[in-house]
């Protein structure tokens, strides 16, 4: 049975980046849905509420079978098109997205997905991957064989410690999720993307 959250998330990310990046790769989609899930945790939602899980697999890390199946379904139904390894939304895909956006389980997800997509544009391409590689459960899963679930256990506690520090530096009430997302990623990736310099008049 299709996971409606995974279908919705895939369509949102693809539609958000379709025109700007001329499509989204499956690899990018996996990373960005994972990032969106992390941002939902930052907002205080439990990991179990996200609707599908991520794991370390031989196909890549993080990897969600739910997202992968959703993409397969959307392609076979013509809601997504794939060219040169990049996914784009068709008109029927955009209509489906509009319909799904009214589902109770999907209404609140847009904020996290939008912030993840925006983060992808605000930083050099490798920063997203390098940052996510250092996410505590991804790091911990590296010592286990493929199939290790992410965002659970002791590693999740360490992620919440990250959030505690992040919320002290950029208080959640001060704005949206893009700045905390980018700060968290660049901090983990250890790749400062900008520096303030002396202003010359």
């Amino acid at each position, binding site marked *: 049975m299709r996971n409606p959250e995974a279908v919705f998330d895939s369509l949102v990310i693809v539609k958000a980046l379709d025109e700007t990046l001329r499509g989204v790769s*499956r690899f990018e989609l996996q990373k960005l849905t994972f990032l969106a899930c992390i941002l939902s945790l930052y907002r205080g939602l439990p990991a179990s509420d996200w609707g599908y899980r991520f794991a370390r697999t031989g196909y890549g890390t993080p990897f969600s079978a739910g997202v992968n199946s959703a993409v397969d379904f959307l392609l076979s139904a013509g809601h997504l098109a794939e060219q040169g390894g990049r996914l784009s939304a068709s008109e029927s895909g955009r209509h489906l997205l509009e319909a799904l956006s009214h589902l109770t389980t999907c209404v609140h997800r847009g904020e996290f997905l939008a912030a993840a997509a925006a983060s992808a544009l605000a930083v050099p391409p490798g920063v997203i991957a390098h940052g996510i590689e250092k996410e505590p459960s991804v790091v911990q899963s590296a010592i286990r064989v493929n199939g290790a679930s992410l965002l659970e256990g002791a590693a999740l506690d360490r992620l919440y410690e990250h959030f505690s520090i992040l919320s002290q530096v*950029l208080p959640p009430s001060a704005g949206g999720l893009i700045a905390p997302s980018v700060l968290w990623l660049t901090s983990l990736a250890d790749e400062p993307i900008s520096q303030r310099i002396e202003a010359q008049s």
Partner: protein
Amino acid sequence: MLDIDRMKRLAEELYVAAVQRSFGTEGVAALQDLIDRLIRIYRRIDPSIRTTRLVLVAPLPSKGPLELGPLLRAIPDVSLLTDEMDRECCAVLDGVNGFAMYGHSQLDLLGVSRSALVYVFQSSQEHFYIDGQVFRINNPSPSHASIFARPTFNSLRAALESYRVRVARESSCEILRGVWHDMHRLFLKAKPEPTMRKSLNQFLAHVLQDAEVKPEQNTDETHPVDIKVTWTLSDHRAIIEIKWIGASRKADGSLGTAWSDARAMAGASQLAGYLDNSAAWAAGVHTRGYLVVFDARRNALSSSRTHINASDGLYFEGEEIPYPHDYSRSRADYDAPTRFFMRPICVPGSA
């Protein structure tokens, strides 16, 4: 565990956080618009060949209209851009996809930045002006002039070729510049391999679609893997072996190891051997081997030489390595070796 003081420093330097601090959600929304349009501009106008300044302004509606002088022209959509932005210009975001073009001279960028977001591209550097402050964008990958110009390669071969031309040839990457012992790039530092690996790894990680790129510890000749590339949702892998040839100096200035092209030839055999061994324990995984050779050879290089002319410096630029056996012809899992000739800084007339 993240360090809060370090994170605070990063937040102070981060342009996105600056936008949020100064202009809140309205500012972040305007930033998203600006970046979106910038990426699409750079698809039409390659920033790497740009010689004039580009200023892009995202107004903040709550701050009221901007005073930028007379409107020169309006461009309703990015897709209609031809040469309007080739000259030095100031483009203000207008509507969903368009721009309003204004004259560029006498623009007080810091002043404008108090009521709008300002992006400036000039001399291959990009800055954001945010509420009277200036933030320089760090570009980790010299493959393109802007982090908002998104190079992507479907094949590792294409990416390696781009690295050869854009990075290795002139040591364009800040990391790779660290391999040189001297300013004219005659001698490498001792043990340059980790730096070369880091440079190439970072480049590939930024430009390869759908791939994880990880450095590996090249522990000995039986495990000559420096970088491993894994494509998502695929059973294909690539292993990259890095060799360098040329001369090196130790930190105290004494001569270090020097390698001739024989080392590259040996590397080719080692990689073939490793691929044979790996096939046994990685059944079901399609692994392809790539040998890359950082070529820092110079002609007539004596220990006392500190400068080099073009004749000696570029002597080996066109000299391909004569591998005794072309594994790429006899094996399906072996790509043709790639040589990255690294140019010195030549001094005319030097002996």
